[in-house]
């Protein structure tokens, strides 16, 4: 029962934060100098055209009313029209077309990062102080030192241009061909995953090392439990909680990485949409993308918190 209560509380927290976040995004955009109508239609637009544009996009109403209108739109999945980027296409259409790609790359990257980190972190902890530990630790530090888009280009240079194993540019939507998406998405996902894997591996390593020193490990050994049983059921099982917390915290960096990497590999996702919109000064689209990212982070953190609660009996009982 307690866990349900906890989930309900957290969900309402997420809704509230989204609301406040949306307000901040909206009013920050309004505080910006310049007239969106002018930037959409150009400096020399006729006054009539400007008036029509302003009426269409409800720009003449009081700010609060504009906000409520916009908010109501968000709830009913109507985010308004794109102003300049793709003239008069509903923003929700743009988002729906691109969200699967970003979600796919994001999850792909997380899974790669988890696999890399679990292996590196575990080996480093088991071989603490020896060569494999030093190598894994060095890789971890190197991972956070590389700009992810640069890593993307290095991967292109090696695996696409030189070895020809993966495409250098372009992306096949997972809705069209899942295998194609796995293949064309590998390099971008790896570029995003590497810095994260570094952080994950480091966390896992220190959590494992900390738990290896715990009294209950000695006690478990004194019962005659085998080394592998003690490792998985005691050391690893207790380390995984801290690990999941870090995974949740890193999602905000993961999504940041996705934004840049989508541009590098020409993936039509939310990140590249946001960048395109920023160039085109299509503020409604920038707003919408910011909200999508905000909601994604909040939802992932919610899931992470619930997983943590399930993993840690101290939180649920």
């Amino acid at each position: 029962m307690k866990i349900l209560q906890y989930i309900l509380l957290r969900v309402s927290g997420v809704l509230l934060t989204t609301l406040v976040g949306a307000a901040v995004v909206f009013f920050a955009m309004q505080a910006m100098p310049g007239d969106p109508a002018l930037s959409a239609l150009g400096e020399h637009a006729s006054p009539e055209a400007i008036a029509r544009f302003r009426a269409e996009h409800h720009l003449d109403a009081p700010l609060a009313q504009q906000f409520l209108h916009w908010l109501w739109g968000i709830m009913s999945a109507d985010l308004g029209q794109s102003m300049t980027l793709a003239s008069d296409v509903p923003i929700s259409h743009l988002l729906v077309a691109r969200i699967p790609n970003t979600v796919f790359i994001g999850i792909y990257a997380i899974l790669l990062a988890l696999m890399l980190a679990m292996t590196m972190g575990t080996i480093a902890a088991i071989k603490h102080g020896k060569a494999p530990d030093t190598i894994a630790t060095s890789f971890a530090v190197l991972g956070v030192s590389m700009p992810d888009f640069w890593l993307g280009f290095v991967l292109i240079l090696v695996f696409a241009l030189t070895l020809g194993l993966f495409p250098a540019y372009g992306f096949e939507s997972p809705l069209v061909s899942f295998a194609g998406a796995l293949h064309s998405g590998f390099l971008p996902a790896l570029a995003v995953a590497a810095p994260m894997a570094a952080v994950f591996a480091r966390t896992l390593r220190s959590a494992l090392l900390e738990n290896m020193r715990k009294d209950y490990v000695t006690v478990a050994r004194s019962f005659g439990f085998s080394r592998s049983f003690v490792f998985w059921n005691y050391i690893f099982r207790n380390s995984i909680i801290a690990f999941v917390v870090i995974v949740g915290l890193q999602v905000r960096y993961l999504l940041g990485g996705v934004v840049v990497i989508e541009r590098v590999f020409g993936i039509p996702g939310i990140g590249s949409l946001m960048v395109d919109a920023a160039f085109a000064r299509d503020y409604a689209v920038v707003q919408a993308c910011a909200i999508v990212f905000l909601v994604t982070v909040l939802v992932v953190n919610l899931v992470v918190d619930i997983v943590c609660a399930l993993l840690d009996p101290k939180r649920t009982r």
Partner: protein
Amino acid sequence: MDYLLDVRNLEVDFAPETRSAPVVDGVDLRVGQGEVVGVIGESGSGKTVTCMALLRLLPQHAQVRADCARFRDMELIELGENEFDALRGRDLAMIFQDPVGSFNPVKTVGWHFRHVARRVTSKRPDLQGRGAWKASAVELLRKVGIPHGQQIIASYPHELSGGMLQRALIALVLQLRPALIVADEPTTNLDNIVEFQIIELFRLLRTETDASFLFITHDISLAARLCDRIVVMYAGQIVEDGSTRDVLDAPRHPYTQGLLRTATELEGKVDRLAEIPGELPTITNMPSGCRFAPRCPQRQAVCDQYQPMRTIAGERAVRCVLADSKGAL
């Protein structure tokens, strides 16, 4: 007498390359069938390390040597890693100081019972079959003074008190039916009333099971209530060994005498040995002769030389030059 455990000249060294003294030095330890042996000493005297070494639970960089370490008819030193794993828990078990830290915090108490039971199912028909461990666990919990075992089994460690967990841990160890139970200060982290109850439980267990106990404590009055024989350790060495009555009535080593004086003066619990001036030497500045000499009120010139254990009679032995001259005490 045939010993269950017979260890001679045990030595544990954590940093052999440095010139510091071994943490445990020349320890002889014998435990008979069904005997309860108390190991007494201040914290840092090496008593815990000695027991951890017996169960091979020390970190890998620790170097353990012994002339012999016989358990039943096995030589513990010669056992391979897997053979020792099979022995640990089933024949040699340990109860630790901190019951709260002894349990896996993310698993229920029942989980511990279930997996401990799995260790011994092959030799125990009563544990075979699904859920058999549960009945046995509840029964054992009742034996250690917990009537509502069902409820305890479903609880997580953080939901229970330290005293409750220590009882549960003892029940876990009993589930294994080991031949030798090492209890390392099992009551130190508990408050006085619970400590009393746990000691009573041990007194009950020594009559009800045929296990032998190695009971480690810094509290000589606890050992007096529980043990058949007492071994006093100081700075990594055994300084006195004898039956409880002999050691308590006629202590031969000045250190034991000091211990007893403090215990009787404070009437019970002793945390610091105010009666004996000075401090325990550290491994880096260990005296080359008698290790107690710097604090000893009866120090002699000869104490600067190495002092071996001197057998007085039968099992009674003292590491002190005064034991040589009859009537000096």
